[in-house]
């Protein structure tokens, strides 16, 4: 019996490997570098490895349609684009995370205990969040390029587990933070159980764990459809949970609110990209030929998601919760891109993911700016008159809201237009109409916030806006610039996507 060594083609894996390397070093730094230097070192390390991996990604973007690690990872145009988006978002999110003000000095210490206080006073700030971020990012990179069920599952957990922990790291309102971690974890695990069960049935149906194998089985037909359908259904649950689609959305408002805002920004933006990336690959390649079974159901979910997200957002009084619901609504919009199941849909979804992700990071970045003595202020009523006290925060936040609302001249509009037209092209008129309708509803509450900030006068307990750290300011500005640029002249990016985004099967 001859044994051939597996070909891994490291070049294609390198973006992920670099990040993992960075993460491991980060762990060592956490252990051995003096607490004075630690934050700086960690930050440079994290940014550095993200940058490096991005450069590597840029180098290899051309080498399309290659599979790596014995075909368990596929690297094609969409993969490059999605990984690129994730890295960009991660990069600017790290700027926010760098503002340690948000994170507990010592996660292990009891809330309000002397231990904690002491850690805080002695400036003994643990910075495990950086390596965790890197682990999560590498998982996210792996998620959309996974080419078999094992890799997919591993990637899913790789990106989830760090996030569960990061959600619990808030310095203020720690109980809420921990609670959000718990909820996120339990529900996440719960859904991944469904995911795994679905995977099992797909394997049972196709007697293969590789996507190509499953796809062939579907194309060939003749298998036991019951297995297939249960497989699709349960696998979808896992993915829909990650993107926060109704009725698997319940976790997101609580977690978004409880988690430290930088983390919220990071997961709201990056997780969506990763999860939708995976969805695109799976539904566009693997399940494409079983579309008769799942498109209608997914359309239904998309519609419900848009409407419910928009409607409930109206009634929110907390900025972060409102953004959470708005992100639910956007999940619905994005789903219509998945349903489209055509080239236009693919391009549109990828564009939308990047545009939306960046705007989201920007929006949450602004939220981190609005503070008073006891930390961030997320109660909308205390945002009254923000326009007067902090034109910068108010204006940029308004810009991001308009982008969410899909007002022309912002990236959001181009995204909405392209994704809806793709859906319409595929004949999903109902989804488009629901989309338009919920956009109208959504506009209602975005505008309400703008009115709050600009047209009403501050209540006596006025929120003070602390001078933002350079990095946070940078994040906001970068996000704003990109949001406008993509709205005014999106042609280059769109062309780039159109040329690159072709799945290999």
């Amino acid at each position: 019996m001859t044994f051939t060594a597996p070909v891994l083609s490291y070049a294609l894996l390198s973006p992920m490997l670099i990040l993992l390397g960075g993460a491991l070093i980060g762990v060592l730094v956490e252990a051995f570098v003096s607490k004075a230097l630690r934050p700086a070192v960690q930050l440079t390390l994290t940014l550095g490895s993200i940058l490096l991996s991005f450069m590597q990604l840029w180098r290899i973007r051309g080498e399309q349609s290659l599979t790596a690690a014995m075909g368990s990872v596929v690297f094609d145009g969409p993969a490059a684009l999605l990984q690129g988006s994730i890295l960009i978002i991660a990069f600017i999110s790290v700027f926010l995370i760098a503002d340690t003000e948000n994170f507990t000095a010592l996660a292990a210490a009891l809330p309000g205990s002397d231990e904690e206080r002491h850690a805080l006073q002695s400036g003994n700030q643990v910075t495990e969040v950086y390596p965790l971020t890197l682990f999560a990012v590498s998982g996210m990179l792996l998620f959309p390029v996974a080419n078999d069920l094992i890799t997919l599952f591993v990637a899913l957990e790789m990106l989830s587990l760090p996030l569960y922990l990061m959600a619990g790291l808030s310095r203020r309102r720690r109980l809420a933070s921990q609670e959000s971690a718990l909820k996120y974890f339990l529900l996440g695990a719960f859904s991944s159980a469904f995911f795994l069960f679905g995977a099992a049935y797909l394997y049972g149906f196709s007697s293969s764990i590789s996507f190509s194998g499953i796809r062939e089985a579907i194309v060939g037909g003749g298998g036991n459809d019951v297995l297939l359908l249960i497989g699709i259904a349960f696998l979808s649950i896992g993915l829909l949970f990650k993107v926060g689609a109704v009725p698997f959305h319940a976790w997101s408002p609580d977690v978004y609110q409880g988690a430290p805002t930088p983390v919220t920004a990071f997961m709201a933006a990056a997780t969506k990209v990763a999860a939708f990336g995976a969805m695109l690959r799976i539904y566009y390649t693997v399940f494409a030929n079983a579309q008769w079974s799942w498109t209608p159901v997914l359309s239904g979910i998309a519609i419900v998601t848009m409407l419910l997200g928009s409607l409930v957002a109206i009634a929110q009084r907390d900025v972060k919760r409102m953004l959470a619901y708005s992100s639910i609504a956007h999940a619905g919009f994005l789903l219509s891109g998945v349903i489209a199941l055509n080239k236009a849909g693919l391009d549109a979804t990828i564009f939308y993911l990047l545009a939306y992700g960046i705007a989201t990071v920007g929006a949450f970045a602004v939220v981190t700016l609005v503070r008073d003595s006891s930390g961030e202020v997320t109660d909308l009523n205390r945002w009254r008159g923000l326009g007067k006290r902090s034109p910068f925060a108010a204006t940029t936040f308004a810009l991001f809201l308009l982008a969410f609302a899909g007002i022309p001249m912002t990236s959001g509009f181009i995204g909405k237009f392209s994704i809806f037209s793709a859906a319409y092209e595929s004949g999903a008129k109902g989804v488009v109409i629901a989309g338009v309708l919920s956009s109208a509803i959504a506009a209602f509450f975005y505008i309400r916030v703008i009115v709050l900030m600009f047209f009403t006068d501050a209540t006596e307990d006025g929120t003070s806006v602390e001078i933002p750290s350079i990095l946070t300011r940078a994040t906001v500005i970068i996000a704003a610039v990109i949001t406008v640029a993509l709205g005014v002249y999106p042609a280059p990016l769109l062309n780039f996507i159109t040329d690159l985004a072709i799945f290999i099967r």
Partner: protein
Amino acid sequence: MDASNYLYVSALLFTIGAVGVVVRRNAIVVFMCIELMLNAANLSFVTFSRINGDLDGQVMAFFTMVVAACEVVVGLAIIVTIYRSRRSASVDDASLLKR
């Protein structure tokens, strides 16, 4: 003996686990139920692997165990922190965040 019976067992286990998650209050128990579901999935992997006569399913099962182990680490960490700060492991007590 017909292998499909194992599938019924695994489906049963999965259901028990799922229901358990919904009905039990203690975070640890809830987590155990989830583990149960994972193992149900594993069982069907193995069964299918037997039915299909290839090893992929079993490989998958191994991976699952590893991942589950990681999950336990993270999960217990979180649950323990909560327990320490709340002096209770009931998932219903943790309901600050709502509406």
